[in-house]
């Protein structure tokens, strides 16, 4: 397993009422959607359990390590929107550009920060779009309609973030 570096396997955006807003898989054809839906659901409790201790920061760090390869990192905004990034530690083959240290050492929590910040910016940009109407709480409770984000700009931005991220990136 030499010569493989971490990459983002999945990005999930979960709404305030634990409603799924968006799930992207990378690479989409190699990942099972249902498996990642389960993984995302399983981390909701972790968010809830840690919330009382998280008063200053929005970064929830490592939520859980699923197996040797997959690890889940979380971020929750003050408005209750959760971003979850699943990192595959052997996600893609190393290229000449990748530093040796990236493969040798595990990830630090700070490595994911730029990705989360970019995701949050993307979400804010989505809310600035007058044609996006945020899901209404009453509709979610009654399970009326889908709460999925359909904005192409947002989805494209999520894909860009997943592609641009690598361990040690400072700005996306």
């Amino acid at each position, binding site marked *: 397993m030499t010569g493989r570096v971490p990459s983002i396997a999945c990005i999930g955006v979960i709404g*305030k009422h634990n409603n799924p807003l968006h799930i992207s898989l990378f690479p989409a054809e190699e990942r099972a959607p249902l498996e990642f839906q389960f993984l995302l659901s399983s981390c909701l409790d972790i968010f809830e359990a840690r919330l009382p201790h*998280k*008063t*200053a*920061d*929005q970064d929830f760090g490592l939520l859980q390590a699923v197996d040797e390869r997959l690890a889940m990192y979380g971020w929750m*905004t*003050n*408005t*209750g*929107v959760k971003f979850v990034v699943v990192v595959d530690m052997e996600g893609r083959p190393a290229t000449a550009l990748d530093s040796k240290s990236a493969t040798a050492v595990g990830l630090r929590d700070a490595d994911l920060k*730029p990705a989360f*910040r*970019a995701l*949050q*910016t993307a*979400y*804010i*940009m989505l*809310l*600035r779009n007058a044609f996006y*109407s*945020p899901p209404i*709480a009453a509709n979610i409770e009654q399970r009326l309609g889908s709460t999925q984000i359909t904005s192409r700009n947002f989805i494209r931005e999520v894909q860009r973030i997943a592609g641009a991220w690598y361990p040690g990136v400072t*700005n996306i």
Partner: protein
Amino acid sequence: MAQASPSNPTEPSTSYIDPTFSLVNTSCLDLLLIELVPMAYRITADLAAREDEWIHGPSSKAKQRKLSGASNDASSTAPGTLRGGAGVGTEGGPVGGGTVDEEEAREAVFHRLESVGYRVGLGVVERFSRDAPRPTTPLDSIKFLCKDLWTLLFRKQIDNLKTNHRGIYVLTDNTFKPITRMSFDTKKYDAAVQAALVAQTGDPALGRDANSQARVQPFLYFHAGVIRGCLDSLGIKATVTAECAALPAATFQIRTAGAKN
């Protein structure tokens, strides 16, 4: 939420590039409101007229209704269009047919403007709470609204915050920026007329003040909606009512879900 962006760069330096940072003249919100409120009245009047036509049918009953109903229609739509043409200076409150219609129209306008404000509130909080510490108690959220958001939106903090510690909060702004530029016809209600009115009714709140209050009220609906949106986004379900006792002061009463008097 460009129209709500601050005009003073109070933005703290951040470690990331913020593409949402922009400066907007504060008059934009004033200008927007001038259009928004009469538009809400026009839409409501149009909808009411259409519904009326739908219910009573355009042909058979229309003739006999025309005598009774047309006056109703005319009086409910005409002020809207007149007001739109002549600006907001003409007549503030809806001068619909009966009191029931008037109340209904007021409610409809309130809901329209309030929901517009609600959507703005959601966006504003999402944007401006990203660097704030997480509010843990409802009072924290209200303080965030009074201090941080109010400064961003209206360039000043709330003057007074009262609470009964059971879920009701009263926010008082002694110089609420969006209504500071409003003026009223003081000639019509000068001291003599005012005194006569008071003598006639025995209520000093009538006359000039009552007239201006009713006209300012619709311009506060939008802001009540913004507040509700902000709080909802921070996890507090509440109803917000806005009142203007005397220009340019405004009072917002926030009643959170499950509040006790």
